[in-house]
């Protein structure tokens, strides 16, 4: 499906209309206020300060060697018995995953921005599969038929009252909006059945090691653990910019993402280097054991290598913590409306340009205040507002024929 870029006036009209969306603004405001508190807990921690420096230099190196690193990761995976695939375009990625999944399956997914970027859930559903998001926020937006509002918190724009409403519709009973545990328990109960019956689990990547293909994810819900290990087949989908030189680098990158994504103590950090196996009989590796029987890894380009040749290379260092979105004034009043088909606000405008083409981001850039709140908080020091201005300048120059 080709999505045509919107005109400036279309975007402005949507932006003006969104100002009147009270539930959205309530959800975003509460989320932004909570973020201030969680950020206060990590910002001066000496380990986090050190991690920031280390991860910045890891990502600085990555963008210089992106092509080499993703190839190395793919070879390492193959050598470890994990089929790996390179998808140059969205469609390539969809074809690869769809072929692996087939039709008539129950598929569970953990949250992955790349899978949103390529439209994976819809594509698999259209091919006769039952697909469920296991991340609570992502399940909420699946129920509501929306795009993610934020990289880490997809349902940030949905206040508790609106969660109660959609759960009532989907689960057929009423919920007290102030009883958050009851709503979370209902999702747990619903998803547990899906997880146990799924034939395929699709998971994402926070970082992946070029040295041995180990995939690192960070989470609180345990849905990534369950999604990757309960179903017989685990398909991992991620962007090629997620490849870092070593497993230790990958752990550091994922941890920093957790800290900046609003989790002062991330509950689970998962390292996964293949389908389950055991060496308990004569120290000989036998696969599978208790977890998934097979694992496939799909690394997606979709504009990333091309962006390396533009000023947008800077944004490919992004660890997708979404902190920049949570300090953005325009985002605070317009929420996810200020965004492209997948990525919203701040660095999301740059990701829109990378993955959808610059024209898709053009009209959005005029709503940036260039206030640098995003730059100030970015743990890897991406010049987000400067890059947004670069897109704006290109667009304005074309518009005025100068």
């Amino acid at each position, binding site marked *: 499906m080709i999505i045509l870029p919107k005109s400036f006036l279309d975007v402005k009209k949507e932006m003006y209309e969104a100002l009147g969306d009270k539930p959205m603004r309530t959800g975003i405001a509460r989320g932004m*206020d909570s973020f*201030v508190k969680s950020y206060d807990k990590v910002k001066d921690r000496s380990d986090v300060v050190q991690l920031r420096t280390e991860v910045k230099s890891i990502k600085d190196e990555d963008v210089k060697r992106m092509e080499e690193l993703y190839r190395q990761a793919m070879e390492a995976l193959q050598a470890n018995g994990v089929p790996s695939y390179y998808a140059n375009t969205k469609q390539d990625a969809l074809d690869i995953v769809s072929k692996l999944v087939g039709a008539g399956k129950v598929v569970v997914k953990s949250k992955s921005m790349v899978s949103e970027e390529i439209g994976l859930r819809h594509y698999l559903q259209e091919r006769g599969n039952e697909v469920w998001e296991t991340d609570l926020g992502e399940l909420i937006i699946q129920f509501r038929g929306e795009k993610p509002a934020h990289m880490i918190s997809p349902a940030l724009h949905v206040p508790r009252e609106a969660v109660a409403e959609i759960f009532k519709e989907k689960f057929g009973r009423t919920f007290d909006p102030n009883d958050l545990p009851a709503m979370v328990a209902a999702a747990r109960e619903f998803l547990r059945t899906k997880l146990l019956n799924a034939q395929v689990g699709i998971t994402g990547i926070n970082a992946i090691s070029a040295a041995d293909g180990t995939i690192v994810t960070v989470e609180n819900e345990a849905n990534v653990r369950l999604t990757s290990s309960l179903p017989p087949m685990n398909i991992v989908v991620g962007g090629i910019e997620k490849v870092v030189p070593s497993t230790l680098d990958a752990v550091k990158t994922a941890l920093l993402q957790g800290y900046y994504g609003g989790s002062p103590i991330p509950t689970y950090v998962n390292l996964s280097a293949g389908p389950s196996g055991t060496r308990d009989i004569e120290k000989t590796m036998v696969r599978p054991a208790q977890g998934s029987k097979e694992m496939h890894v799909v690394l997606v380009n979709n504009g990333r290598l091309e962006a390396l040749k533009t000023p947008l290379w800077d944004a490919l260092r992004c660890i997708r913590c979404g902190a920049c979105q949570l300090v953005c*004034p325009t985002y605070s*009043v317009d929420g996810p409306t200020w965004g492209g088909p997948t990525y919203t606000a701040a660095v999301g405008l740059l990701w829109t340009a990378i993955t959808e083409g610059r024209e898709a981001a053009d009209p959005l850039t*005029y709503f940036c205040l260039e206030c640098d709140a995003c730059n*100030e*908080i970015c743990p890897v020091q991406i010049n987000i507002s400067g890059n947004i201005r670069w897109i704006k*300048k290109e667009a304005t120059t074309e518009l*005025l024929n100068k």
Partner: protein
Amino acid sequence: MLDRKDVFNTLIDNWKKTTNPVGLKAAEFTAWSEGLNLPADTGTIIYTGGLYQMVPFINAFVAGLDRLESSSVGGAGFRVFRALSSIGLDVSSAYAALTAGDKKRFNQIVVNVVSLLKRSGVEVSYLGVDELYSGILFHDMGIDWVFEEQAREVYSRFKKHGVRKVITMDPHSTVALKLLYPEIIQGYDLDVHHYLEVVDAAAAVTKDSLKGQKFTIHDPCLLARKLGLWKNSRALLAQAGAEIAEPVRSRNFTFCCGGPIENIAPKVSNDITIKRAAELKQMADTAILACPICLANFTRVEAKTGLRTLDILEVVR
């Protein structure tokens, strides 16, 4: 609803006619200096950039744009001024309606910066009609060719007057002269400082002159982040003995007032201003800031939010 081209062409037309984006006559910028007898060509100048003097006009201009956004006129190819007059709201008449009192407050701010500098032992000259607007709004909007042309013209005027050191008074012009001009102009050799870097708090501010008064503080985003000067305004207020209640988002993590998009999307800008004003109002009834764009924005919503905003140059003596 206004398209981006309408807004850009209006600003560019104004600039072509007057060298500033809101179409003001030179006399409006220089009025503050009448009778001050500032020394000529000391080598150090106060550069106002015209922004404080523009505040009442910016407010009239943006109010016009905002009314136009709500009306059915506008759209591709429509020039804003023509559109404004077609709904009976002509900006030049809105400007004419401004009283001497409206302008006085903002002109006085410029007078006050010169006094603060003087008490800090810094004598400044002023270029008067030879001082040009910095062009920063055009940079913000990505109209770089206008910004670059303006930068070169501003610089050549400085050179003509033998200027070596420039003291700026607002964050936007400071970013232009200090951070952006050097990227455009080869051999750029001016020594540029924001007044907050130059003013000596102990010498310029009467101790405890604001004792017993409580304010909250709004750090202008460019001042706090691009220029890193959030400590300086606090030092002046501390010398004056003012009580400062910090808002949740402050210092280098301050929250923008919405000003930079007031022309292209006045309604989004306005909602951001109201949101920030509400946050400040939780801390105190009056917020101190140090930026003409913030001041323009907050004064526009004052009746709605109940938050009074004052520039630091209006309170420290």
